[in-house]
C-alpha cells in the first residue's frame, strides 16, 4: 500500500532528538526510563508527566537526546492540553518520533497516529502492554500494522523492559511514513495550493497546511512567526475560499475521513476472543468508584496505611534511633569538648546530627519509606483516578469539575506536580485548584509524617485533624467559588486506567527513587536549617525572635514557645518541621490537642518552595505570591480560632 524509504543516517553535527509522544498513560515514561537508564516517576494513570523531560542515550554508537513528553490526544484541536508538546514538535522538530500506544486501546491512539504520520517525521511505534492485551484475549497483528503505516511497529512490555532492544534498533534506522489519507478533493486542492504559496515552513508543510485549513489557532500563530504579512493575507484568503467553496464543515469532513480510516485499520488488525479474565480487577475497580462501597474502601486503605506507618515505621524508627542515632550522638558528645562544638554537632536542641542528619535519616526516612511503598502500590494498581469519581460530589459544590478534580487528587501525591498539571484548566478553576492544592491538600510526605506524629496519640487525633483540614478546604472552596467571577466550568471527561495487580519490582524501584530524591534534596536542607537555628540560638537572635512571637504562638495559638523552631523549619522543608514535632511530642512538650493543631498548622502553613515556584508558573508571579501570603496568614488565623474554640468549650488543657 505504501512505499517507504530508509532515512539517510544523519551524520550532521549535533545529537539526534527522539521525542516520545502518545496518549496519557501509555507508558511513555517507562520507555524513557528504559532508553535513558534515567528515572522519571511512573504510575498507572495520566498526568504523571507534566513537563517535558530530557535525557541522553546512546544507540548503536549514536548519541541521542530523548524527550519524554506529557500525554497528548491530537495535534489539532482547540484544547490547551499538550501545548508544550505541540510547541516542541513544531519548533524543535525532533528527528525521530516514538509513539507509545497502549495496545488495549489501539483505536484511541490511532487518531494521534494519523496526526503524527502526516508530519512526515521518521517514526517508530511502540505497541505497549502487549501482555495485558493477550490476557484480555485481544491479538494485534503488528506486522500488518507496520505495513499499513510503512514504519516499524515494535511490541513491548514496558513494565518489564521487554522489546526495548528491538525498539532501540528501530529508532536507529527509522523510516519516513507516507501520509496515509486523502481528503475530499477541495481540501486536497487547498492544501497543495497552500504548500505552493512558498510561505510555509518547509518541514511538516502538509500538516501545517492541513491545520491551517481548519483554522487551528496554534498553527496560525506558528506560521505568523515565520511568514510575511502579505503571505499571511494570501494564506487567509485561500483558507476563506476553501470554507466558502466547501459544502459543509471542513473540520468535520477531515475528522470523518480520519475516523473511518482509524476504524478500518483497527478492525483489520485487532482480533478479539472473549475471555472472562480480570473479572476480579474489574469488580474491584467498580467497588472503588461506587458511591457507597467506595468510601469504606477508601477508609480501609487509609486505616491500613495508618497502621503500617505507626507500627512498622515506628518499630524501624525505634530500631534506628536505638542502635544508630543515640550511640552515635553519645560517642560524638564524648569526644568533643564541652561548649560550641559539642552543641553544634550533638546539642540536644539544634545539633547538626540530632536535628539535622539523624532527624532526616532515623525519624523521617522510615515513615516516608513505608508511606511511599503504600502510595507506590496504589499508584501501580491505578486506584488514584477512581477518587475522581468518588469525590465528584464534593468538588461539584466548590466549583471544580473536569480535569481540575484530577489535579487536586494528584496533590495527595506531590503538590508541585499537581499544581503544574493545572495548565489546561480554565482560569477560574485553575485559581481554585491551585489554591486548594497549595493550602489544604497534604502531599504524600506530609500525610505520612502526620500519621507518624499523631499516631503517637491515637487514630482519632489523626481523624479529627484531617477532618478539620477537609472542612477548611471545603469552606475555602465554597468561598472562592463565591467570590471568583463565574465563567462557566469545564466538564469531567476522564479516562480511568484499567485496574491491575501491582508489580512489586516497579513499586520498590519507585520507592527507592523517591527516598533517594528525598535524601538528595532534603538532607542538605535539614543540615542547613539546623545550622541556621543553632547560630540564631548561639547569637541570641532566636530568643529575641521567640520573645517577639510569644503573644502569637503562646497566647493566640496555645503552643509551647518551641513551636517557633518548627515554623522556621517548616519554611525550609515541611519534613524537617515534622521531624521536630515528633521529637517534641516524644519529649512530652505537646499534648494531644496541641499536637493536632501543630500538625494542622504545619500542613496549611507556607507551601514548599517548589510548590510556590509551580504556583507562580501557573497563575502568574503576583497571584502566586499573593496566594502564598494568604495561605500563611490564614493558617495562623484559622489555627488560632480552633484553639480558642477548644478553650471556649473547655476542651483545652495545658
Amino acid at each position, binding site marked *: 500500500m505504501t512505499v517507504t524509504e530508509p532515512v539517510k543516517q544523519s551524520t550532521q553535527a549535533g545529537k539526534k532528538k527522539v521525542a516520545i509522544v502518545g*496518549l496519557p498513560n501509555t507508558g511513555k515514561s517507562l520507555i524513557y526510563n528504559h532508553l535513558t537508564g534515567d528515572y522519571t516517576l511512573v504510575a498507572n494513570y495520566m498526568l504523571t508527566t507534566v513537563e517535558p523531560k530530557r535525557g541522553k542515550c546512546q544507540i548503536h554508537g549514536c548519541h541521542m537526546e530523548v524527550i519524554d513528553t506529557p500525554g497528548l*490526544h*491530537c495535534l*489539532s*484541536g*482547540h*484544547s490547551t492540553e499538550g501545548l508544550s508538546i505541540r510547541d516542541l514538535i513544531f519548533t524543535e522538530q525532533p528527528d525521530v518520533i516514538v509513539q507509545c500506544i497502549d495496545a*488495549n*486501546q489501539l*483505536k*484511541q491512539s490511532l*487518531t*494521534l497516529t494519523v496526526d503524527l504520520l502526516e508530519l512526515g517525521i521518521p517514526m517508530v511505534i511502540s505497541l505497549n502492554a502487549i501482555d495485558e492485551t493477550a490476557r*484480555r*484475549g*485481544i491479538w494485534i497483528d503488528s506486522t500488518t500494522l507496520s505495513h499499513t503505516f510503512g514504519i516499524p511497529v515494535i511490541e513491548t512490555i514496558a513494565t518489564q523492559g521487554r522489546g526495548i532492544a528491538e525498539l532501540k534498533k528501530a529508532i536507529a534506522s527509522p523510516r519516513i511514513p507516507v501520509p496515509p489519507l486523502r481528503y475530499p478533493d477541495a481540501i486536497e486542492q487547498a492544501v497543495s495550493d497552500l504548500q505552493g504559496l512558498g510561505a510555509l515552513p518547509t518541514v511538516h508543510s502538509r500538516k501545517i497546511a492541513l491545520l491551517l485549513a481548519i483554522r487551528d489557532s496554534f498553527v496560525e500563530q506558528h506560521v505568523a512567526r515565520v511568514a510575511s504579512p502579505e503571505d499571511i493575507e494570501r494564506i487567509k484568503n485561500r483558507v476563506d475560499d476553501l470554507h466558502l467553496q466547501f459544502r459543509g464543515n471542513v*473540520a468535520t469532513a477531515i*475528522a470523518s475521513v480520519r*475516523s473511518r480510516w482509524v*476504524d478500518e485499520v483497527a478492525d483489520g488488525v485487532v482480533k478479539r*476472543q*472473549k*475471555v*472472562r*479474565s480480570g*473479572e476480579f480487577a474489574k469488580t474491584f*475497580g*467498580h*467497588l472503588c*468508584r*461506587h*458511591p*457507597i*462501597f467506595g468510601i469504606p474502601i477508601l477508609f480501609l486503605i487509609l486505616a491500613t496505611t495508618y497502621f503500617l506507618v505507626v507500627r512498622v515505621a515506628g518499630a524501624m524508627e525505634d530500631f534506628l534511633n536505638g542502635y544508630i542515632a543515640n550511640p552515635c550522638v553519645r560517642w560524638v558528645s564524648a569526644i568533643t569538648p564541652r561548649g560550641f562544638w559539642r552543641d553544634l554537632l550533638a546539642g540536644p536542641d539544634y545539633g547538626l546530627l540530632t536535628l539535622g542528619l539523624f532527624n532526616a535519616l532515623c525519624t523521617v526516612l522510615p515513615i516516608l519509606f513505608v508511606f511511599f511503598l503504600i502510595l507506590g502500590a496504589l499508584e501501580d494498581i491505578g486506584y488514584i*483516578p477512581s477518587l*475522581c*469519581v*468518588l469525590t*465528584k*460530589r464534593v468538588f*461539584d459544590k466548590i466549583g471544580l*469539575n*473536569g480535569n481540575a478534580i484530577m489535579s487536586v487528587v494528584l496533590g495527595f501525591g506531590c503538590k508541585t506536580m499537581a499544581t503544574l498539571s493545572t495548565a489546561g484548566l480554565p482560569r477560574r478553576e485553575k485559581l481554585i485548584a491551585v489554591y486548594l492544592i497549595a493550602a489544604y491538600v497534604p502531599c504524600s510526605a506530609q500525610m505520612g509524617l502526620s500519621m507518624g506524629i499523631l499516631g503517637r496519640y491515637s487514630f482519632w487525633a489523626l481523624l479529627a485533624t484531617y477532618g478539620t483540614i477537609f472542612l477548611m478546604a471545603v469552606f475555602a472552596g465554597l468561598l472562592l467559588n463565591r467570590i471568583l467571577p463565574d465563567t462557566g466550568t469545564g*466538564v*469531567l*471527561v*476522564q*479516562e*480511568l*486506567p*484499567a485496574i491491575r495487580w501491582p508489580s512489586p519490582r516497579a513499586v520498590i524501584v519507585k520507592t527507592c527513587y523517591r527516598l533517594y530524591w528525598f535524601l538528595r534534596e532534603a538532607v542538605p536542607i535539614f543540615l542547613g536549617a539546623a545550622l541556621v537555628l543553632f547560630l540564631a540560638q548561639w547569637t541570641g537572635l532566636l530568643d529575641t525572635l521567640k520573645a517577639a512571637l510569644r503573644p502569637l504562638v503562646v497566647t493566640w495559638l496555645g503552643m509551647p514557645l518551641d513551636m517557633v523552631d518548627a515554623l522556621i523549619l517548616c519554611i525550609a522543608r515541611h519534613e524537617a518541621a515534622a521531624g521536630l514535632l515528633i521529637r517534641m511530642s516524644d519529649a512530652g512538650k505537646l499534648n494531644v490537642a496541641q499536637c493536632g493543631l501543630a500538625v494542622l498548622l504545619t500542613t496549611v502553613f507556607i507551601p514548599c518552595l517548589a510548590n510556590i515556584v509551580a504556583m507562580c508558573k501557573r497563575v502568574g508571579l503576583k497571584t502566586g505570591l499573593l496566594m502564598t501570603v494568604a495561605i500563611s496568614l490564614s493558617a495562623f488565623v484559622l489555627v488560632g480560632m480552633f484553639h480558642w474554640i477548644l478553650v471556649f468549650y473547655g476542651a483545652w488543657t495545658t
Partner: protein
Amino acid sequence: MNVGQDEYLEALWCLREQEKDTLADLQTALDDPLDHDILASLAAVGMAVFNRETGTVTLSAQGLDHARALVRKHRLAERLLHDVLGLRNQRFESEACTFEHLVAPNVVDGICTLLGHPRECPHGLPIPEGPCCTRNEHTVQSAVAHLSEFELGESGRIAYLNCRDDSLLHRLNGLQIKPGAKIKVHQKYPAWVVECEGGMIAIDPRIADSICLWRQQTPPPPEHEIGPQETEKSAKWRFWRP
C-alpha cells in the same frame, strides 16, 4: 403501487365501510372522473375484483391488507396533524394525503403509540388497528435515546453528539466517543462511567445528556467463549454495581 392506485384502494376501502360496491358509488367517492386503466391495473395485480355483470368492484384479500395500511396511515396522519400540530380546515387533509405515501410502517406504529392508539380520525371514521394497538403499547421505543436515559449495563451505539463545544468534541473524539462507537454504562452516580473501545471513561452527567445513542440489546454470549460462563453467584452480586 403508484399514487393513483393508492387513491383508488383508499376509496374502495371507504365504500366497503359504507357497504357500497358499485362503480357509480366509486365515481361519487372520487373527485376526478373514473379512470378505467387504473381499475384494470388493480384487477391485474389481484388487488381488486371487478365484476362486469353486476357493475361492482370489491377489494381482494391482498387489496384489503394494502388498503387497510394506507387508510391507517392517512387517518393517523390526520390525527397527528390535527391534534398535535394543530392544523385546521382542509389543510390537514391534503397534508395527510402527502404523508401517507412517505411514512414507513414501523414509524406509523410509533405515531399510533404516541397518540395513544386513537380509534377514529378527526372526521369520525374508524382507524384500522395495527399490531401496536392489539399489544396496547404505552411507550414509543424511540430509535435514538440520550445516554442519560440508559440503565446500568445497557449498551448502545452512538448516533450523534449534541455538543457545541469544539474542544470538548475533540476530546471525546480522541477517547473514541464518536458516532458509530459502542458504549456500555457501568456507573451513573456521582459521575457516569462508561466503557468505550476497551477504555473506561468517567464523564460528567451533563455530557451524558448530550450523547445520543441507538439502543442495543445485549447479545447472548457467543458460543466460543473461553473460560467459565457467568455463574449464578456473579449474577446475584450485581446488586451492588451502581
